C-alpha cells in the first residue's frame, strides 16, 4: 500500500477517538458493514453472475446465529461456523446445478431470486421459533455487564467500529486476491463466451462455484455481524427480494468493477437515505425512497459503471488524452 492509503486508513481508524457522537459513529459502522456485504456481492456480480439471492445468505447468517443463541444457548462464536457451513451448503445446492446446467443471465437472476424468497418464507413459516415477520431479538447478555464476549454483544459502538473496520479491510483484501487471480481472468473469459472458454479446458462449474462460495460466505458473515450489532433481525431486513435488490443496487451505484466501488455505493446509498430522511423528516412518508428509486433508475441508464467507476474512467481519460496520437 502506498503512503497515502496508510494515512487515509489511519485517519478513518482514528476518527471515532476524536469524540464523535453516537449517531455519526452508528452511520459509519453501518456504512462499513454494508460496504463489506456489497463488496462480497460484487465479487461475483462483476463476473456476470448477477445474483438476486444474496438475501438468502444474509438471512441464513443472521438467523442461524440468533436461533442458536436463543434456543440452544449456543455462543455466536460457535454459531458463526455453523452459519458458514449452512451457507456453503446452500450455495453449493443452488450453485452446482445452476453452473452445471448453464443457467445464466435472466434465468440465473430469477432462480436465485426464488432462493431468497424461499429463505424469507421459511423464516416466516417457522414463526413459532423465529417470531415470524415481527422479527426476533437475541436474548440480551447486557443486563449486568456492558459487554459479553461469549454472547458477542457489545454495547460500545467503538468496539463495533473496529470490528467492522477490520472485517471490511479483510473484504477488500479478498477482493484484491480474487481480482489478481487466474480464476478472475478465466471467469471473465467465461462470461464473454462460455463454450469457447470450456473448449480450451476451463472448468466452468468449478471456477464459478469457487467465486460463488467466497461471495456467499462473505455475505453470511455480514448477516451475522448485522444481527449481533443491531440486536434485532426480521425476515424483511435480512432476506427476500427487497434486501437482495438493495445489495445489487448499492454495488452498481458505487461501481462493481473497482475495488472501492461497492464501498462508495454503500456510503452513497446510506447517506442519501439518511440525508433525505433528516432533511425531509418522517412526516412525508416515502419521499426519501421515491428519490432513491428514481436515482437508481437514472444510475443504471446513464452511469452503468457507477460513481467510482465513472470517476476513475474520467480521470484516466483526462490524464491520457494528450498522449494519445491522433488515429
Amino acid at each position, binding site marked *: 500500500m502506498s503512503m497515502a492509503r496508510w494515512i487515509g486508513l489511519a485517519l478513518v481508524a482514528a476518527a471515532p477517538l476524536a469524540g464523535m457522537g453516537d449517531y455519526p459513529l452508528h452511520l459509519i459502522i453501518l456504512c462499513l458493514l454494508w460496504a463489506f456485504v456489497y463488496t462480497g456481492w460484487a465479487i461475483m456480480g462483476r463476473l456476470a453472475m448477477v445474483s438476486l439471492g444474496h438475501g438468502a445468505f444474509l438471512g441464513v447468517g443472521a438467523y442461524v446465529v440468533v436461533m442458536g443463541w436463543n434456543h440452544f444457548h449456543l455462543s455466536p462464536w460457535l454459531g458463526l461456523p455453523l452459519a458458514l457451513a449452512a451457507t456453503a451448503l446452500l450455495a453449493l445446492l443452488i450453485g452446482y446445478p445452476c453452473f452445471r446446467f448453464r443457467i445464466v443471465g435472466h434465468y440465473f437472476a430469477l432462480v436465485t431470486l426464488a432462493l431468497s424468497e424461499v429463505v424469507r418464507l421459511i423464516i416466516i413459516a417457522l414463526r413459532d421459533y423465529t417470531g415470524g415477520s415481527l422479527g426476533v431479538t437475541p436474548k440480551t447478555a447486557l443486563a449486568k455487564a456492558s459487554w459479553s464476549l461469549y454472547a458477542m454483544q457489545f454495547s460500545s459502538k467503538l468496539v463495533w467500529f473496529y470490528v467492522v473496520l477490520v472485517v471490511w479491510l479483510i473484504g477488500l483484501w479478498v477482493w484484491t486476491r480474487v481480482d489478481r487471480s487466474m480464476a478472475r481472468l478465466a471467469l471473465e473469459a467465461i462470461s464473454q463466451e462460455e463454450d469457447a472458454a470450456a473448449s480450451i479446458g476451463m472448468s466452468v462449474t468449478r471456477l464459478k462455484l469457487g467465486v460463488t462460495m467466497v461471495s456467499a460466505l462473505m455475505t453470511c458473515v455480514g448477516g451475522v455481524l448485522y444481527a449481533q450489532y443491531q440486536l434485532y433481525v426480521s425476515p424483511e431486513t435480512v432476506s427476500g427480494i427487497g434486501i437482495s435488490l438493495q445489495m445489487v443496487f448499492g454495488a452498481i451505484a458505487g461501481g462493481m468493477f473497482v475495488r472501492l466501488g461497492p464501498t462508495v455505493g454503500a456510503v452513497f446509498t446510506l447517506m442519501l437515505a439518511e440525508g433525505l430522511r433528516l432533511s425531509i423528516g418522517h412526516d412525508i412518508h416515502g419521499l426519501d425512497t421515491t428519490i432513491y428509486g428514481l436515482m437508481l433508475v437514472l444510475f*443504471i441508464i446513464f452511469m452503468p459503471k457507477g460513481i467510482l467507476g465513472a470517476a476513475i474512467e474520467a480521470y484516466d481519460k483526462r490524464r491520457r488524452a494528450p498522449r494519445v496520437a491522433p488515429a
Partner: protein
Amino acid sequence: MQIFDIFLLEAVINGILLGGILALLALGLNLIFGVIDVVWICYAELIMIGMYSVYYAHNVYHWPLALAFLGCILLVAALGALLHVLVIKPVLGAEPINQLLVTGGVLFFLQAVATLAFGVEFKNIGVSLPALQVGGLYISLARLIAFGAALGGMVAIYLLLKRTYIGTAIRAISQDRAIMPLMGVNPNRIFVLTSALGGALAGLAACLLVLQYDIHPAIGLSFGPITFMVCVLGGLGNMVGGFIAAFIFAQFISVGGYFLALEWGYVLAFLFFIGMMFWRPRGILGGKR
C-alpha cells in the same frame, strides 16, 4: 373422512381458480419478454398502481365499478408504454442484465410513490361478493369471475396475435428482430404497443385482484416473485408453457397450503421451481438439455 375430502376438493378447485389469475399475470410478462426480451421486475408494482386507481376512482370519486375498471386498464396500459419509452428504450442496447435491474429500480420507485401518495394503510374497495354453494362446496364468486375474466383476456390476446395484422407483426418481431425492419415494420412502434398491451393485461389483473385482496404499497412483493417463477418454469416468453406452469404452481400453493400453513405452500412451490430448473432449464415445454 367425508369432510376431509370435500375440503381437499375445495382446495383443488381454489387452486384451479388461482391458476387462472397466475396465468393472466404470466401472460403479460411473457408477451413482453417474448417480443422485447426484457423482464419487467416491476410488473407486480404496475398492478399495485392499477389496484389503487380502482380504489380511488370507485371509492373516492364514486365512479361506477365498470368505469373504474376500464379506467384502470387504460391507465396501466399507458404506464406500460411510458415505462418502455422512458426506462427500457435507453438501455435496449446495454447489457441484458441492466435491463432487468433498471426495472428493479422502477419497482422501488413505484412502491415509494405509492407510499408517498396513498399511505401505508390497507385499503379495500368494499365490494364483497358472495360465496357460491355447489353441492357441499363453497366457491368464492370473486375468484370464479377472476378465473373467467383471465381466460377471456387470454383468448382475446390469442386472437389478437393470430388474427390481426398488428398481431402478426408482433409475432414476427419476436421471431426475428433484425429482419422485420427490412419488411417495413417499425420495431419501435411494435415495442411500445406490446408494452401497452402488457400493461393492459396488468390492469386487467389489477381489476380482478382488487376484488379479493386489500391494497397496500408492498402488495406487489407478495405476488411478483411467484409470477416470475411461473414465467421461467413455463419458459420465458413461452405463453403456453406459462399457462400450464401457472396451474401447477397454483395447485402447490393451494393444496400445500391446505395440508400445511399457507407459507409452506409457497415454500413448496418455490422449491419445486428450483428443482425443475435443474431438470428442464428451458422451461417445462422447452427441450431437455
